[in-house]
């Protein structure tokens, strides 16, 4: 089985466009009629549903941002009566007030289909044993991949995250072939496997589906080596359903966006202007099939590039690059834009642990950048000279990439808090906002 829904995943661009035109028109009408919050935004902009005749008119619609979702909490963007909804999910709330998203049964079915496409693209069939080690609960990760795995017919292990030794025990006893979790948890499982003296080839894993946080190509190679599998990226956000908005195929060159459900745009984050395909900017999604919580032109804050060139996997849906950073967790330090992923890339290239922490502060009106980096046994020396030289070389490499000088602090291995969910990478003490 190469595709889960070949007639959709390999549809002609004209067919995809026809679906998008038709579904968008109906969706805008549905939202206008049922979501006073968005109707007001449209009226402020002087747009009516009649102005939207297809995808080309999308630019006329107002944007939604995370702060709209907070303002409208909890029911303000709900488009059906709660009696039609069967479930909610919620964001972690790390950036402020929680965002709650609602689902009808149909919404969940379509979401599960999206996740099933991702699992099949990673080589999954009903013969596979799929271990879902994303958190279950309000977080969408566990529920999404669990649903997708059921649709594919895999034997599903709804492990949730944590209890790593038990994860590995089940992996061995039940011969898991696919693992789904956050990349930082996958790296942690890989480390634990090594510590337990288990070789990657002793495991039956063939594929991993990792998402919900930014990760780099270097991290992909580390995870692939430590668990003996091929690592696939999956993208999504609670606001648009959850994981499965876009997923990687065997080519591992960008993630196919499920365009029969979502219209993707790239905009200039400063001006809001739509940019042509191939240009880097902020990713914006419009849900065209969701009934309960249909967001139009939702600004993801993820910076990436869309690629419409044909993919050799046979899928015709547009591909998005791995997010290159988030326009909202982008740090501006001494006037320089800094993405934590840039620092991570240098650390991995130089053989340091990807477990790091960035501390930004402002002392006497000057921004300071401190990076806690875990020392590895290979880099340890009994002389101060050698360790300090390594520290200085690392600071220099980071400076070359960022353009600003960091202060490196070497810390003991495993001393930086490891999450079994999302990692806290940045502590900004400057309080530049609010």
């Amino acid at each position, binding site marked *: 089985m190469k595709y889960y829904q070949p007639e959709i995943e390999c549809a002609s661009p004209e067919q995809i466009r026809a679906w998008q035109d038709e579904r968008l028109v109906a969706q805008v009408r549905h939202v206008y009629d049922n979501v006073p919050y968005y109707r007001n935004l449209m009226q402020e902009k002087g747009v009516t549903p009649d102005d939207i005749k297809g995808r080309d008119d999308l630019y006329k619609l107002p944007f939604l941002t995370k702060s709209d979702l907070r303002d409208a909490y909890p029911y303000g963007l709900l488009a059906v009566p709660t009696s039609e909804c069967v479930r909610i999910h919620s964001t972690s709330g790390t950036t402020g007030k929680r965002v709650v998203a609602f689902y009808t049964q149909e919404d969940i079915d379509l979401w599960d289909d999206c996740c099933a496409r991702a699992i099949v693209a990673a080589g999954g069939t009903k013969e596979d044993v799929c271990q879902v080690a994303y958190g279950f609960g309000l977080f969408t990760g566990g529920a999404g991949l669990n649903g997708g795995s059921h649709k594919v017919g895999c034997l599903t292990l709804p492990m949730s995250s944590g209890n790593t030794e038990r994860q590995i025990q089940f992996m061995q006893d039940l011969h898991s072939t696919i693992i789904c979790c956050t990349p930082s948890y996958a790296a942690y499982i890989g480390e634990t496997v090594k510590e337990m003296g288990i070789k990657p080839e002793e495991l039956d894993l063939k594929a991993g589906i990792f998402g919900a946080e930014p990760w780099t190509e270097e991290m992909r190679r580390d995870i692939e080596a430590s668990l003996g599998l091929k690592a696939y990226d999956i993208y999504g956000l609670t606001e648009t359903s959850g994981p499965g908005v876009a997923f990687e195929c065997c080519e591992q060159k960008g993630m196919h966006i499920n365009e029969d459900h979502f219209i993707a745009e790239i905009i200039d984050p400063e001006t809001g202007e739509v940019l042509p395909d191939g240009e880097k900017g902020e990713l914006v999604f419009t849900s065209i099939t969701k009934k309960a919580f249909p967001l139009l032109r939702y600004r993801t804050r993820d910076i990436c590039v869309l690629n419409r060139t044909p993919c050799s996997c046979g899928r015709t849906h547009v591909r998005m690059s791995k997010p290159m950073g988030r326009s909202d967790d982008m740090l501006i330090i001494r006037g320089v834009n800094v993405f934590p992923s840039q620092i991570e890339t240098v650390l991995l290239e130089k053989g340091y642990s990807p477990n790091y922490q960035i501390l930004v502060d402002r002392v006497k009106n000057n921004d300071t950048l401190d990076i806690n980096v875990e*020392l590895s046994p290979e880099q340890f020396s*009994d002389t101060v000279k050698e360790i300090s030289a390594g520290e200085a070389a690392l600071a220099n490499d980071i400076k070359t990439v960022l353009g600003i000088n960091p202060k490196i602090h*070497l*810390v003991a291995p495993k001393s930086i808090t490891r999450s079994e969910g999302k990692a806290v990478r940045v502590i900004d003490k400057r309080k530049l906002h609010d």
Partner: protein
Amino acid sequence: MIKQISVFLENKKGQLADVAAILGGKNINLHALSIADTQDFGILRLIAENPEAVAEIVKDAGYICSLTDVLAVSVPHTPGSLAHIVQILSAGGVDIEYTYAFASADADRAYMVFRVSDNMTAAALLSGEGLKTLSEKDLFAK
């Protein structure tokens, strides 16, 4: 030549106390100890019997730790002994990374530990001057 146990310490409260307590708890007697510290981190250097086992204990407690070959020299407990050794090594082109001293059971002698750029050359230079470098057996003989 003897083996020194080198341990990475983060610059935060209680690190040394923690290592000391772990070793004390395992009934390890430390013969010598030295700390190199910077603003950010420290390196604890230890001399103890059965260094391989001690290193394992420290590693198991989660510390980064390695074994380093160092020279131990028994020197007369008199002024000028250290200067003499340093002169021999420097004249022979051997660089000293660091050194520290510890007491010997013999009140007339002290032990010096040297971490040098080239152990073999250093040992040969010293023995040429009648200064014996000690083995673990010599050091820990009861």
